[in-house]
């Protein structure tokens, strides 16, 4: 029995690729190999970056999605102009548009109303809504309540919760 190092799926002896996640299981003759241990989102961002220029045109057709680094989940944003991020808990008067609780947001220090992502004309911005633990863009702390422009592939950190912004033209 072979155990896939990527997804822990059990494969039969003699298998060369994992049937669950497609990762190579053994080394082959003369093939330069590297075991890919990245999450889907990291690899996705890395590869798309190589092709589409970071300054690709943002317009009303652009689809915004957020990729949660730790779990690899990807959340497509609806076509709203502004989306708020946070957690939903009991007795909360204002709820965020996107609830990050299922992704262990509480443990990572995400506030109930933490930040918002806004698209104005050709600019996508992220605004910290006065959260307890602050928001960072690519590791730099941003000032609360002041919109900060972001581009494709930027890492937005809410407390310790890392999200990658992905833009794609329709």
């Amino acid at each position, binding site marked *: 029995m072979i155990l896939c190092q990527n997804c822990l799926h059990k494969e039969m*002896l*003699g298998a060369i690729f994992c*049937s*669950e*996640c*497609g990762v190579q299981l053994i080394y*082959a003759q003369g093939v330069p190999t590297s075991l890919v241990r990245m999450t889907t989102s990291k690899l996705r961002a890395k590869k*798309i970056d190589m092709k589409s220029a970071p300054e690709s045109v943002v317009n009303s057709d652009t689809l915004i999605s957020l990729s949660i680094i730790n779990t*690899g989940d990807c959340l497509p944003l609806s076509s709203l102009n502004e989306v708020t991020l946070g957690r939903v808990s009991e007795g909360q008067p204002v709820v965020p548009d996107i609830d990050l609780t299922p992704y262990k947001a509480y443990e990572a220090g995400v506030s109930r109303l933490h930040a918002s992502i806004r698209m104005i004309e050709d600019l996508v911005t992220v605004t910290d809504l006065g959260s307890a633990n602050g928001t960072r863009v690519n590791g730099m702390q941003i000032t609360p309540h002041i919109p900060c422009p972001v581009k494709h592939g930027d890492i937005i950190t809410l407390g310790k919760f890392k999200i990658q912004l992905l833009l794609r033209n329709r």
Partner: protein
Amino acid sequence: MPSHPSYYDLLDIPSDATPEEIRHAFHEAARRLHPDVSSEPNSNEKFIEAQMAYDVLSDSRARALYDQGLRELSDSPVVVDITYSRQKLAVVDEPQLIYVLLEYSTGPKFVHTPNPPLNICLVLDRSTSMQGTRMDTVKVAAVEMVRQLGPEDRLSIVLFSDRAEVLLSAGKRIDRTLIEAQIQMIRATGGTEIYQGLEAGFNEVKQNSTRSQINHIILITDGRTYGDEDQCLQLAGVAAKQGFRITGLGIGTDWNDEFLDELTCRTGGTSFYISRASDIRTFLQDQFTNLKQIFAEQVILNLSFSPGVKITSAYRLRPESAVLGSTSPIRLGSIPKPSKLSVMLEILAQPVPLMKHRFSIASGETSFILPSDPSRQHSIPISLSRSVRTEGSTGLPPNAIFKALSQITLFRMQERARQEAAEGKIQEASMRLQRLATQLLSLGEIDLAQTAIIEAERIQQTHMLSAEGEKQIKYGTRTFMSPAGAEE
């Protein structure tokens, strides 16, 4: 086979024997044939022969040269190269997999045989949905095909909607201008009933079929057929027995790819997908070129397996990548010249019994029709076996197998995602598509990866895959299986 026994025959070992096996066989032969102990007549000569054989085969360089010479001497019209994913099978008490790559190519003495003439029927969907660019491009492509026909080639054209009409019968001498005018007159109208068209096409091909031709039906459709799928499949079975193959082309997103796969697979043919009408021309052009290169038709692999061994899946890698049936006999398709027919088998073996030195996986034959020599049924023996070892490494997979499998894995992930989506396992399907996207990205297939990501998101929202994305990913990953350009 050469008239005198080969060195392998002398030592009574398979041609892919390992060095240990060769040594073992020689020692056995030496003990048996040594002039001091043997009472056999002319044991002296036999002993010398065995020694000669061992001298060559034990030296890897000399053995390679000898193998090449043996190959060139071969009288067989088709030669097969067999590559295994592992040199040895492990003796373990759990089931194991072994991959076998079969590569059929034209025998050295047949390289200059002229390619056989064609007997093709184009079965064209003229239902209302074909109206516009699709019909126009099909017309242009059909006219181009007429112009390329050689003097020996026969072409018939059948149009179908809810009934079939023979536009051009294969029996007639072709007046090109008349045909071209007739093709231009085609108007799209009516529904889609594939059986009608297929039956008319079958009759056209049959009318003129001889075994010295390539008999082929090309079906072009853009819709689903209702209620007559079983009839179509039966007809495909009859066509296959006659030695006809069917190639299917689906345009757009509304046709049933599973049905077309099944239909063409029964004859050893392939189904194709194109999203844009403009690709029809390239498709027909490629088909024509491929058909012109066929050396052997109706290649069938007939194997009987040792107990506890079975094929779990089979794929044709080229000339046209496809999923093959996994129960013997397997219709492999045709062997092109000068290229190859490559087939990958995934074989599951239950625990190997310890006492055997060499484990026979399967034996049987590959039969085929040779249009250049149609008088008899041809076949070559196939025997799959591996030596067995109790410990240590079972060897690394050769590069060719490795490459092919990496692509097949992608296709299978796509298949599983589709199946999961159909069963309503939304999370699993979405997850798998994302993993597929990861693998596609690592291959640099950005467009297809993005399609996979979009579908992964779509399925979470709508609990369904889009017909377009589904087909794009399926046929996209399937094309990778064909190692075009990867070799030679």
